[in-house]
């Protein structure tokens, strides 16, 4: 059985791409195009993995795993970067209020209710980010294999 290269490093690189795109203001506009930044992270995890793979065939299960792993790292790095950059919930809420006519009232009320419990808001937000990043990272990984792999 042939040994395959390590998946951790490409997944971390893909996750870092996801995290930076998600956390940096302005750059995170890319995600407005249907989570393109997250999908790109999954795609690049496959790209860097393929570089170490040589002539061995790239398969879909590796791509999906790489994309999902990149999603996990992306969510963690994104949350960490947001904290470092200083995007806090008070700022987020104030920004939301500026555009309150454009955002569903139910979402605003939900955040208003959770304003007093920032821990719960952070956990809920991080959990949602994790689910989204894993799903779209996985899709990015599969698309990566479809694009970078050899067609049978």
């Amino acid at each position, binding site marked *: 059985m042939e040994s395959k290269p390590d998946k951790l490093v490409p997944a971390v690189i893909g996750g870092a791409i996801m995290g930076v795109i998600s956390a940096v203001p302005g750059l995170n506009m890319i995600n407005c*195009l249907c*989570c393109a930044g997250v999908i790109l992270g999954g795609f690049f995890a496959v790209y860097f993995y393929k570089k170490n793979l040589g002539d061995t065939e790239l398969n879909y299960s590796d791509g999906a795993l790489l994309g999902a792993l990149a999603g996990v790292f992306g969510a963690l790095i994104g949350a960490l970067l947001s904290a470092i950059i200083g995007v806090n919930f008070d700022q987020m809420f104030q920004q939301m209020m500026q555009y309150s*006519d454009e955002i*569903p009232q*139910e979402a605003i*009320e939900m955040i208003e209710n959770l304003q007093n419990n920032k821990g719960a808001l952070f956990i809920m*937000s991080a959990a949602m980010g994790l689910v989204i990043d894993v799903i779209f990272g996985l899709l990015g990984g*599969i698309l990566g294999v*479809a694009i970078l792999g050899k067609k049978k």
Partner: protein
Amino acid sequence: MISTAVALWCVLLVLAPLLAHMDLVAPSGILYLFFSKICHQQASRSFFIFGKQMAVCSRCTALYFGFLFGTLLYPLLQRTMKDLQPPKILLLFAAIPIVIDFSLGGLGILENTFLTRSITGLILGSVVAFYIIPGLKNIFMEFSKK
């Protein structure tokens, strides 16, 4: 199974405004908050049903429903065509309209409309399905062998 998962995702997009319409603010708020992670949710760029806006904007809605359409179309075409993984270049061609529409709007050169956002989203969504489904089928086959 893939179509069911995608259909469930699309149901959630409609469920958020439906729950809001029924004054179930908490579950509706959670759904809107969840989808706010992947969409700007601007009311002026969103479809409305039950008097409430959908969970995502018109472009994202079209993309997800286009993807659902692709997953439903795939098994029908599979009966008549052997190789259903289209050439890679087709994905690029499907992505070009949405990128142009998004970029021209973003740069303020030409304002996109509900029609352009919906059409470009539907095109990319339905084409992407033809690259994702073979991959997912392949993964299921690999696991069933093990």
